[in-house]
């Protein structure tokens, strides 16, 4: 025989053609349908469970069937590719499912009390038999407490991150980073207890008109700041580190002082990321219940003054209404939860739009 024909093609050599057999387009959906039918037959035939089990078994059958079919027609590599793609897509669906479920539950159950009364009145003088009552006081509380906490946290957090990234050298910067990391792990109830012990019991008597310790929305804001600070510092720090060094050098080379370079070149470049970090912190703070309960005390009446007397918040309102014996309370809790999610969503969208407007989009 000639050397040419006896010469075996090594696996690395070029295949003679670039074309390969492919599964027909209708095949994967057909396999999925078949898998579901078989799964339904098994599950209902044995009387083991309901539709959820059908989907789970069907999904597993689909993966197996797809692998087998693709392996037979397209070869092993393509079969693996298809199976892993299917797995990744199912992981995505699994991740989105809880979110969709939460949104749907909130919308469907929260719609019942989505009326003007809910947003215009408080729980003052609302008894167990009263179907009305609202969360105005809680909305005001959440906005004031989170607003004050943001005002406290954002400047401190951003300055702290600037120190760590741009100025800090050696042990001191390392220590700050370390303690910020430790702060990230503080449970919210501990932060609440700290403010209760430090601010409410010791400091607040000097400021209150009665001279006695008292709950206040401001105390809640302090507790929330303790929780927000590490998030703001760490996310800002990461964003500042992402700003390329050549940008800073470009500014230095123009004779721009360091502080101005940070203010006018580094911060604007990192702004969208910083805004995202701040919004994450705000979202976390807005959902906190325990510290508000500990240091603002809750309350049924509208209190616009964050520095004196009890205040409620939306998260606390949800907690209290959900545990209330009145049969009208659960509906109020659901609507308050919906309001809280909507509030955070609106704030996030607004902040993102603001940050984007600052960049050049023309």
């Amino acid at each position, binding site marked *: 025989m000639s050397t040419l024909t006896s010469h075996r093609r090594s696996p690395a050599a070029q295949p003679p053609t670039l074309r390969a057999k492919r599964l027909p387009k209708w095949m994967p959906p057909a396999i999925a349908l078949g898998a579901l039918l078989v799964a339904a037959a098994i599950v209902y035939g044995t009387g083991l469970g309901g539709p959820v089990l059908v989907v789970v078994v069907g999904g597993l059958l689909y993966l197996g069937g797809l692998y087998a079919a693709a392996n037979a027609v397209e070869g092993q590599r393509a079969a693996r590719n298809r199976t892993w793609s299917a797995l990744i897509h199912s992981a995505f669906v699994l991740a989105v499912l809880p979110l969709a479920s939460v949104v749907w539950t909130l919308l469907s159950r929260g719609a019942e009390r989505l009326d003007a009364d809910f947003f215009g009145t408080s729980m003052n003088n609302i008894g167990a038999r009263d179907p009305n009552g609202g969360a105005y006081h809680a909305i005001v509380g959440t906005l004031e407490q989170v607003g004050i906490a943001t005002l406290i946290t954002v400047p401190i957090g951003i300055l702290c991150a600037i120190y760590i990234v741009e100025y800090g050298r050696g042990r001191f910067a390392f220590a700050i980073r370390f303690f910020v990391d430790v702060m990230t792990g503080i449970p919210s109830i501990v932060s609440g207890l700290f403010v209760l012990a430090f601010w409410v019991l010791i400091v607040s008597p000097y400021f209150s008109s009665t001279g006695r310790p008292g709950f206040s929305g401001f105390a809640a804001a302090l507790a929330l700041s303790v929780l927000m600070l590490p998030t703001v510092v760490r996310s800002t720090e990461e964003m500042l580190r992402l700003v*390329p060094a*050549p940008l800073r050098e470009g500014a*230095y*080379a*123009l*004779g721009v*002082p360091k502080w*101005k370079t940070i203010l006018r070149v580094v911060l604007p470049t990192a702004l969208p990321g910083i805004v995202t970090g701040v919004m994450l912190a705000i979202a976390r703070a807005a959902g906190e219940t325990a510290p508000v309960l500990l240091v603002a005390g809750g309350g049924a009446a509208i209190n616009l003054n964050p520095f004196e007397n009890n205040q409620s918040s939306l998260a606390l309102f949800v907690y209290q209404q959900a545990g209330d014996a009145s049969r009208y309370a659960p509906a109020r809790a659901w609507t308050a939860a919906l309001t809280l999610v909507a509030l955070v969503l609106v704030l996030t969208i607004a902040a993102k739009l603001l940050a984007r407007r600052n960049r*050049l989009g023309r």
Partner: protein
Amino acid sequence: MAKRIEAADVTAYYGGFKAIENINLTVEPKTVTALIGPSGCGKSTFLRSINRMHEVLPGARVEGSLTIDGQDIYDRDVDVTAVRRMIGMVFQRPNPFPTMSIFENVVAGLRLNGVRKKSILDEAAEKALRSANLWDEVKDRLGKPGAGLSGGQQQRLCIARTIAVEPQVVLMDEPCSALDPISTLAIEDLMFQLKDKFTIIIVTHNMQQAARVSDRTAFFSIEKTGDPGRLIEYDNTQKIFSNPSVKKTEDYITGRFG
């Protein structure tokens, strides 16, 4: 206007590592000086020590004396920002500020140093962009982001940004290494024009470029990896490329080494 730069026994460190040792050279006003040599020989380090950009890196320091028209720029009472305003720098990769428009990029140096008046900024922007041969290409889209330009245009934008603050010396650290031949040619032409007003020092790996654009050439080299870079030969470009007096220079420029 353009200034004479004298380096005497300049030695630069990165922490404990000595990157260049005892560099002595004098750069005449209104000339183009090219720094050539193999990678890691300290050309860029020397260039960056001329406008005190070397010390931006943590642990980096410079010894010896660098004078510009007789003033030592490493004196204790010298203002770093004033040095850098007098000695501008163009980097290897174009680095326009991403949050700023083309116009804002060009006037960034002026604006961030306190110039507010719109008429002055407009005039300076046009002048700098014209000097950088970029005006005709961008005059209708000054409000667009600077990062949207092509690589060659971005580099000319960075040159415009540098010369807008009217420095007296312009340092260029391999300004064409990320650019195509046409953009490179545009920037080389530009150097010829800028020579009338500025003293230019350019680091380049491209020996044809050094031969084309420079009046004087300095050849840097190292003995082996880890040794500090030294100045081997410094002479008129024509002499260096036709009849170098040191064997090592000849080996390098004829491609036998490095």
